[in-house]
């Protein structure tokens, strides 16, 4: 299995989307922190992803726009910090939508799940 981020796909998923990852930012962090610490932080992000995706899904099910906005905001910050630009991009959209009073719809969930899936190929965060 390819590690996420560096070595993962870096192309945009759609014309209007950002690259899946900011490979330069991730390499910069690896160089700054060293492989061990960077990988430890990535593992922490995996834990966060599982929890936050679950929170967003529950908010969608319960039509709770505010809860969706809070979870999406946390997801945006966590992924932005580590160069996962596509997830951050779609999390920002969910956050804006939630702040506008609209909970994620099924197609929103499909988009954010797809962004996570192509950012972490072969890993399952939908449990």
């Amino acid at each position: 299995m390819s590690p996420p981020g560096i070595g993962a796909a870096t192309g945009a998923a759609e014309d209007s989307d950002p690259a899946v990852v900011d490979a330069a930012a991730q390499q910069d962090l690896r160089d700054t922190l060293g492989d061990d610490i960077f990988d430890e932080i990535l593992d922490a992000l995996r834990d966060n992803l599982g929890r936050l995706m679950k929170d967003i899904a529950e908010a969608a099910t319960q039509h709770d726009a505010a809860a969706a906005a809070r979870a999406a905001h946390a997801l945006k910050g966590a992924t932005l910090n580590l160069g996962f630009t596509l997830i951050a991009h779609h999390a920002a959209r969910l956050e804006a939508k939630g702040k506008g009073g609209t909970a994620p719809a099924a197609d929103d969930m499909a988009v954010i799940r797809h962004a996570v899936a192509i950012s972490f190929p072969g890993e399952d965060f939908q449990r």
Partner: protein
Amino acid sequence: MTTQVDQGFVEWMSDKSFLVVEDVSSSRLLEASLLRGLGARTVVTAVDGADAVSKLESGATQPDIIICDWLMPGLDGIGVLEHAKRLIPGIKVVMVTSKSGLEDAKLAHDKGADGYVAKPFTRETLLAVLKRLRGV
């Protein structure tokens, strides 16, 4: 590009005590690791605003500088800032947020924040705000 830091800055960092307040564990670990990489020796972490205030009130940590996420469940970063400024005169508080509007930076300043970092949180943005706190 990685900005080099001089020995004076590393010594200043090693002399300071930091509290990192961030509810998302990967971001908390990243911020603490970047601080250590810049020379910090004492970095305590808090998992949310309530944890931070508890550590400050109990005296478990007496930081010189707090690096604090803005939006957290329960007590938010502004709440932590207000508590910290009351409890420890002279403490410096840097707000971290994925908000990027100038209005947010102004609000942080008006509330008494000593610095403001917009995510993504990088070594360079952290270094810039710390250099401003150091005053050189």
